[in-house]
């Protein structure tokens, strides 16, 4: 009961934390590591994840600013603080949110060489680059920015809410090599995205009038699916949940991975995750704005019966039309790459495996991991070094040091413990910022419970 209370408290606090799955990668043979690399090795007969509690992760990350810069309680006004942040950020900065909840997961050993795992999780993944020009225009207007071209191309965002049903296989093809693959069926409940936009808005000194306002070569494509049905916004949360259970827009993807032992102590591993797409065909509402428009003011002819404003409105609609359509489209999942090198050393111990044989393992390991995710503007990278320690065959710990877009001194720690058949793991990240989480732009927490059977 106490544990349940603690878990509940964790869940409440979860949204203020984010994740770093580099700590989880290849850690302690946890079933959840198979979602990061289906080619990793496991040594149990079967596993069952505690429903809704086997794998929970959440991340809220930002580059360019932290929450405390805006919301700290001090004598500076919120307007000044936001202005300071707007001056600081650039169009490469972004805000990212990702949450995964493993609803169900399980696996079993098919034979000595093959482990099959499957499950269902729900994911929210969103990234929005900070369109500095748009923020500046909204916040300050155009008066102080004559001849500045405000870029529309900075507007890039993508939000996905989806359910993922998956089944994977890990197979030891030789003493040195284990290969794995996982097939995923995506059911998208909501997708909002825009990218590859172009165009500028400029106010300059005019010839015929004081100023000339130009919208040049605008090409703005806003795509949505799952947001509106029959011209009304979907506001019922139950509809979104149902759509994530194969009721939404469907897609498919694969994970691929391997583990290779160059020597008994030196191991290489790598994976490609979420190489897939969702084809959106239902509840689509897209907007396309293409064209150019110039406005110099209203030119009076006097004593005419012209309706200047109506003419202006008609010219705007003709030259810069907003076209709405329900065209189907394909949205690619953010594919991730993992690569790792691991060297094991120290005391050699043995543990019982699924086939009642003893398997040797070293109590210490260190190595490096490279993580990359494909995002709309550019690929993002994280480089991690780690040290892993097995205190016993039931208690392991891992400490990591990561350099990424958010931090150059991110220290994370993970613990995995097994008591009887129950496995608990917990991971905290960016420990150096624990004394002031609000000034950090990357802190993470992951935890879960599994039942592991040898």
């Amino acid at each position, binding site marked *: 009961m*106490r*544990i349940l209370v*603690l878990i509940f*408290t*964790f869940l409440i606090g979860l949204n203020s934390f984010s994740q770093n799955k580099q700590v989880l990668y290849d850690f302690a043979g946890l079933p959840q590591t198979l979602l990061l690399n289906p080619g990793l090795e496991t040594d149990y007969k079967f596993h069952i994840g505690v429903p809704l509690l086997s794998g929970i992760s959440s991340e809220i990350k930002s580059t360019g600013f932290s*929450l*405390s810069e*805006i*919301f*700290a*309680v001090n004598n500076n006004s*919120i*307007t000044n603080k*936001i202005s300071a942040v707007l001056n600081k950020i650039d169009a490469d900065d972004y805000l990212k949110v990702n949450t995964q909840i493993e609803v169900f997961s399980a696996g079993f050993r098919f034979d000595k060489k093959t482990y099959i795992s499957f499950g269902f999780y729900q994911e929210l993944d969103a990234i929005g680059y900070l369109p500095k020009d748009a923020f500046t*225009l*909204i*916040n*300050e*207007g*155009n*008066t*102080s920015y*004559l001849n500045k071209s405000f870029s529309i191309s900075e507007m890039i965002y993508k939000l996905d809410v989806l359910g993922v049903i998956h089944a994977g296989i890990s197979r030891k093809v030789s003493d040195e090599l284990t290969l794995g693959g996982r097939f995923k069926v995506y059911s998208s409940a909501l997708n909002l995205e825009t990218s590859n936009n172009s165009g500028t808005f400029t*106010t300059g000194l*005019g010839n*015929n*009038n*004081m*100023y*000339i*306002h130009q919208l040049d070569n605008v090409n703005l494509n806003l795509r949505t699916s799952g947001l509106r049905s029959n011209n009304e916004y979907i506001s019922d949360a139950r509809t979104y949940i149902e759509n994530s259970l194969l009721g939404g827009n469907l897609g498919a993807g694969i994970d691929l991975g391997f583990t290779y032992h160059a020597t008994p102590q030196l191991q290489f591993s790598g994976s490609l995750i979420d190489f897939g797409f969702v084809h959106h065909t239902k509840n689509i509402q897209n907007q396309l704005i293409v064209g150019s428009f110039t*406005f*110099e*003011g*209203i*030119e*009076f*002819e*006097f*004593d*005419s019966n*012209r*309706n*200047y*404003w109506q003419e202006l409105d008609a010219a705007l609609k003709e030259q810069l039309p907003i076209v709405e359509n329900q065209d189907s489209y394909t949205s690619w999942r953010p594919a991730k790459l993992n690569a790792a090198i691991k060297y094991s050393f120290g005391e050699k111990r043995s543990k019982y495996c699924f086939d009642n044989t003893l398997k040797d393992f070293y109590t210490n390991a260190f190595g490096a991991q490279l993580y990359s995710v494909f995002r709309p503007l550019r690929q993002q990278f994280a480089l991690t070094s780690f040290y892993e320690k097995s205190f016993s065959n039931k*208690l392991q710990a891992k400490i990591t040091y990561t350099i990424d877009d958010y931090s150059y001194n991110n220290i994370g720690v993970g613990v995995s*413990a097994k*008591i009887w058949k*129950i496995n*608990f793991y*917990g991971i*905290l990240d960016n420990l150096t910022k*624990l*004394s*002031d*989480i*609000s*000034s950090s732009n990357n802190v993470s*927490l992951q*935890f879960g419970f599994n039942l592991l059977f040898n």
Partner: protein
Amino acid sequence: MNLLKIYSTAFVTIFFLSCSQPLDFEQLEEYTIMPSITSSFVFFSIDAANFNSIISGIPAVTEVNETSDFKLLENSFIKQNLVKLDFYFEIKNEFNRAFLLDVNLLDAQSNTIHKVFEGFEISGNTLKISAEVLLIIEDFPELVNFTKVQFIIGLKDTATILDASNLSKIECKSSLVMHL
């Protein structure tokens, strides 16, 4: 199970030992954006032809008049947050005659709600007359209903005919800055 409790408790302890300086998200309610939006306004070029209707030797047209919708203030955000309006005019008069200019702001029913200029004199042979009119919404709250603009330009001396063959022109440029 005891060990599991110990591990869990240790983990949670670390979790709760983490700190955060006080954050106040309600500050957002005090956040005000104060953009200053510059827009071109009305411009024109008129010549003697605009005043050349003559009936029995008497100039039948001594002033010209034009009205147009200008619906930027129909935008609810602008309307609710408008602090001041700043009109700017630049006028060139090549005629050797003086003209008078009225600029009226009208509401949707074409009622005059404010006279920006009333009988503003444009002297003859003037290459550039500049005029700026700053209107504070607090002083003229009816301005938020401004959706039409009317320009009236007429001869100051209506008794003397404007020579129809005169190639001179009056040119006017104007802009509007909306301070929110």
